[in-house]
């Protein structure tokens, strides 16, 4: 405590404190926009998490994902709470993607998107299978039914469903974040600090 300064305490400085709530709102609002206005069969509800991870690092990314899911629980659907751990891991991976300098190459971003999708599918499968019995009430339930009909267990089918939907969703998320980050003024990127300069 004695060594703390005004701008940096507990790992979160004022820039992080300002950006993270905005990113959480972006997650929620864009998730709704994509589903209600554009009616696309993907979620795109982690753009804010990935953006914060890349700009501010793994810790800030994890906090963004975690609190975003708690907020989903607060405002719309308490059933989003069990998946908070998955959202946190997505933020951590994005933090490392930023440190690695992934946003300088679009294909690196796509690669990180696929990787994130597979990891997310692996972590959410046990939660989906054990807490929700494999279904979420969304269109992706058809996939779970198909995989179980092909002989998969509930856990296996949940993972297979995630492995089909999540990499696509996360790759698109990463590519959108890529398009945004390369358009940002350098001054702003320098202020955020996590992203490795080219």
């Amino acid at each position, binding site marked *: 405590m004695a060594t703390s300064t005004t701008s940096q305490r507990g790992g979160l400085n004022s820039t992080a*404190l*300002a950006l993270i709530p905005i990113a959480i709102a972006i997650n929620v609002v864009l998730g709704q926009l994509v589903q209600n206005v554009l009616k696309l069969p993907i979620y795109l509800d982690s753009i804010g998490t990935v953006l914060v991870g890349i700009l501010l690092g793994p810790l800030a990314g994890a906090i963004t994902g975690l609190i975003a899911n708690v907020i989903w629980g607060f*405002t719309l659907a308490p059933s989003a709470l069990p998946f908070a751990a998955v959202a946190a891991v997505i933020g951590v991976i994005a933090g490392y993607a930023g440190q690695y300098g992934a946003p300088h190459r679009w294909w690196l971003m796509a690669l990180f998107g696929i990787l994130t999708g597979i990891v997310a599918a692996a972590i959410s499968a046990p939660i989906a299978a054990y807490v929700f019995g494999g279904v979420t009430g969304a269109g992706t339930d058809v996939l779970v039914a198909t995989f179980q009909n092909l002989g998969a267990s509930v856990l296996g089918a949940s993972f297979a469903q995630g492995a089909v939907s999540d990499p696509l969703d996360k790759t698109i998320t990463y590519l959108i974040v890529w398009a945004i980050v390369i358009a940002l003024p350098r001054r702003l990127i320098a202020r955020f600090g996590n992203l490795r300069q080219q």
Partner: protein
Amino acid sequence: MQRTGLFLERVGFLQRLNPLTKLTGALLLIGAAFLLPTPLAGAALLVLALMPLAVASAVLRSFVDVLLKTLLPVILSLLLVQGLFFPGADPATIMLGPFAFRRAGLEFALTTASRLLIVAGAPLLIFQTTHPIILVQALTERGMPRSIGYILLVALQLIPAMSERAAGVAEAQRARGLETEGGLLQRARGVLPLVSPLIVGALVDAEERAMAIESRAFTAPGRKTWLHDVPDPPVERSARLVMWLALGALIVWRAAVAVV
């Protein structure tokens, strides 16, 4: 306009409790729903515990309403997917019209659905009876970093404002000829024009907000005082202790049964 949260301005039993007591109770109920060996333990707990609490807190109607809206699609899907396609050797089936439902699958679906009632219902009841500010304050007094509480409360306030801005962006881009209807590819092309103005604008906002935080010395060290007072009477502290002991006993008992 969408509302900022599930909280309802009512006077009742749960509204008077310390948020920590409510959280401990929710944890105990969720633990019981998973650990009690009785089939449909969750459904029983909903009727015997959550619904009487909702009545005592004057939120029963909206509690049941939100719970149904959230869970009905999940439960229906659960019954269909697991009832028809449950993996397993049990050949027993129940015919409903032209569909052969598997008995083991229906049992699995009902057990899961009954647990879900508690997993979603217990937090829902807390959110409906606890103002976010009080919840955050109670957790912060117990050692949660202040920054986490700040992020939570600001995000809750920002969502409606951001929602409005998103609607504005969507309208502006439509006025310039952006297609938000039509084929899948056409709609997918709409993602970037909708998303990027929203985010770039938000990043600029973040910079201004950071300066505001600095100028109000939010990150300065030292003791802070609270505007509200969250009471924590000894009765509630004892109640929490009892609930923790009950949860521990439940876990030990289940583990012992599993070993024997």
